[in-house]
């Protein structure tokens, strides 16, 4: 063996060791539907552990993130490495299209079955329920989904649109499955002059700002703003709530699979789950406590829904909603 080859093989043996010593490096692009502030905190916490990795994130509603991603697939250059979006139905769709990378070594021992894909293509990180919020100045306090069709609520209800929000799409699929008459429930809301325009953030703004008194919204937003002093209250309706799990997944086209895996590991770790708690979310990890303002974990009644049907009907549901609410 020539000296040169010895040197080369020595070098080759050293490179991983050096990389290991310095930790992970390179760029990581995260596409997420988390609000900007939360996404930034998540990224900062990950970077504190992995200072060598530069994380860039893009935030938008899940359907918009997917639309952007599909254009990028078409252009032949998907930008994202990791997705952290609202719902697992969308993830199932991407898995079927063979866009995801399995993370076989992910440690899911603490999590019950069903919170992650059995083949480890995606992993739930939180439990985000959709319920009812009202402005504290409202006279009537709704307690159920059916209450939203009452005359007291007429003209005062705002909802997120499934064209903007992934949680809203699942919510529509859940409610139309669970309520008698399916889409008739939404027709009744429309007859009660409900509006659906933007995402959950828009609902928060309108209800906290008092432009509308009632809103259909994800739990953490009003609970968090109430703690800051905003005049808003959140209700878990008596029929139950719909829920999404904000799953994380790695795209097959990632240029930095090592860092992507580390990001997933971080979200599933105790530390990552406690960050979710600190941010005001219900963490997916069953051992992590619930944030202030929530009832106990077992008191939250989640309505069941058919994930396979939701995936098959995705476009149909969007169109049905758009048709009723004129989008």
């Amino acid at each position, binding site marked *: 063996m020539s000296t040169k080859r010895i040197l080369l093989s020595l070098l080759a043996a050293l490179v991983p060791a050096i990389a290991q010593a310095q930790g992970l490096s390179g760029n990581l692009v995260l596409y997420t539907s988390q609000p900007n502030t939360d996404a930034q905190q998540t990224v900062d916490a990950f970077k504190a552990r992995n200072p060598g990795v530069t994380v860039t994130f893009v935030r938008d509603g899940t359907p918009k993130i997917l639309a952007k991603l599909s*254009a990028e697939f078409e252009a032949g250059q998907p930008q994202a490495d990791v997705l952290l979006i609202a719902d697992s139905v969308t993830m199932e769709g991407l898995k079927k299209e063979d866009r995801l990378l399995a993370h076989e070594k992910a440690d899911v021992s603490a999590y019950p079955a069903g919170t992650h894909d059995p083949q480890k293509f995606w992993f739930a990180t939180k439990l985000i329920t959709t319920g009812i919020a009202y402005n504290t100045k409202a006279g009537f306090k709704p307690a159920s989904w059916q209450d939203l069709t009452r005359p007291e609520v007429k003209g005062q209800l705002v909802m997120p649109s499934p064209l903007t929000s992934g949680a809203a799409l699942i919510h529509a699929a859940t409610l139309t499955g669970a309520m008698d008459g399916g889409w008739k429930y939404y027709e009744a809301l429309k007859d009660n002059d409900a509006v659906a325009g933007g995402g959950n953030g828009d609902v928060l703004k309108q209800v906290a700002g008092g432009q509308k008194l009632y809103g259909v919204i994800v739990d953490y937003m009003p609970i968090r703003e109430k703690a800051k002093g905003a005049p808003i209250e959140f209700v878990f309706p008596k029929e139950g709530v719909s829920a999404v799990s904000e799953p994380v997944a790695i795209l097959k086209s990632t240029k930095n699979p090592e860092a992507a895996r580390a990001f997933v590991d971080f979200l599933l770790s105790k530390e990552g789950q406690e960050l979710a708690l600190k941010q005001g979310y219900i963490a997916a990890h069953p051992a992590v406590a619930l944030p202030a303002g929530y009832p106990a974990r077992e008191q939250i009644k989640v309505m069941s829904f058919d994930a396979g049907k939701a995936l098959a009907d995705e476009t149909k549901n969007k169109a049905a909603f758009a048709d009723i609410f004129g989008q």
Partner: protein
Amino acid sequence: MRHRAQSRSFLERGGFCLLALVALIVVAFDVLPALRLLWAALLPGGAFNPDAMLTALSSRSAVRAAQASLETALLSTLLALPLGTAMALVLGITDLRRRRVASFLFVLSVMISPQVIALAFLHLAGPASPILNTLGFAPEAGSANPMMGRGGIILVLGLHHAPLVYVVMSAGLKRIPLAVVEAARIDGARPFRILTDHLMPLLRPHLASAALLAFVAGIGNFGIPALLGAPVNYLTLPVLIYRRLSSFGTDMIGDVSALGLLVAAIAITGVAASQVLMRRNDVQLEDDAPLRPFWLLGRARVATEIFVALVLAVTLVLPVLSLLASALVPSYGMPLSLATITLDNFVEVLARQDVTIRAFTNSLLYAGGAAGLLAGLAVPLAYGLVRLMGRARILAVSLLEIAYVLPGIVLAIACILLFLKPLPLLGFSLYATPWIILFAYLARFLSVALKPVLAGMVQVDVAQEEAAAIDGARLAQRLFGIVLPSLLPAAVAGGLMAFLLAFSELTVSALLWSAGTETIGVVLYNLEEAGLASQASAVAVVIVAVVTAAMLVLDALGRHLPAGALPWQSAMEDEAHMNREPARAPARTSVLDRLEPKAALS
């Protein structure tokens, strides 16, 4: 002899290069995007299929959106027209004090991008308004924000486009010879009669042209209806296009191209009609002095000044105060008081969030880069157009306007169509890179940057250049030695103007941004959509500060510029400008009128 022959051959060669540059720019930035759009709408999938286009155009939501676009554009024009005209007259013919400051502030309000203005008005009214809450005037909870929906869009569009009317009307006033007023005075006419009997008939084509421009700006506007209409499902065509593309993806691009073509057709018809009107009824300002303020208001002056102050308060001061108030409360919906006031939102967007910091850097980079390139391109382009093209320049200048007249959202679709698939031969796609945004900015703001340079170019003396040519100076030498020094201030001003408009724009980048290439306009919209109204306001306040600073730099540069290069200076009385007129170049009117005025279209 031999020496001259050599120089001529070089001149021809250089001339050819310049002509090629002009042609390349016209084709790349204007003709190509327009053709690509036509192709996508008329020949979806490569076959002529007008049915597909008709289906897209006749869907219920498309018809509704077209109706919303037409009514908001039309009614807002009815508001902008009297307001802008009144301001132009008051600041142009009366002896009002501080006309210069008023003109600057009025035009500043149109330079602040529409989505910032929309955000400001949104937070100005309604139960959550920090200002109203602080004053205790906030309407009861559960009452809708009056700025949301049709009425709000019309109001804000009207106020926002009034300065556009003002700029056109001020330019029109400037073209009326002082002799008209003097002759009427000798006849004993009072100022009011001079205005109604002598000036207004001369201003009629400008009035029509201003109305058309305000209408076109209303049709193409995205920021205002996106923030004020989308949350209550009152969608105009540009917002419908955005929503379809951003929620359903590029599968919709064929439908969306058809809608884009519809918007483009309305806009192009409007602008073309306005230009025909201006040219047909042009007042010839030959060697006469232009109009100067002649109406001494006397006791009515204070009342008039209060009117101007009110207009400025409503269009600029109140909205900016509203933004500031929203940015200083911890959460939207809370009143501003000593107990609640906080700088957290500024810290969050300026120091903590990578996205906003990156977006500020990106916008500075893209807008600055585009502005620099455009300033550099404008000089040879103006030279080629004015010196080398003869009559063909009218066609070329018209073509160069396409990308500016196209609503921004439509230009963005054209860019996606052009650059989504990997480029032929090169094999990579510009989509999801900064280059697609830079390309769109170059195309869109070229005619803005070109305007002052073209105005300066027609004033560069041919004789001086001819003398240099006889001395054997080559084209390049003449360009750098003679033309460039006299056009430099105009090129810088054109670049700055492009920067001003590009820095916080949203219409183009809303569809073109991707991870890492967010612009500040996109981040502002995104924050507002995510419900982070206070942080969005903080971003908006910073945008206003940057735009104001750039305007002040431009204003300071104003003394070195050809008359009329800056829209807010056409109305002010400045002796230096007065004396520089009239221009000598005979070709001036035909070229310049096609370029007036270059304030923000959408």
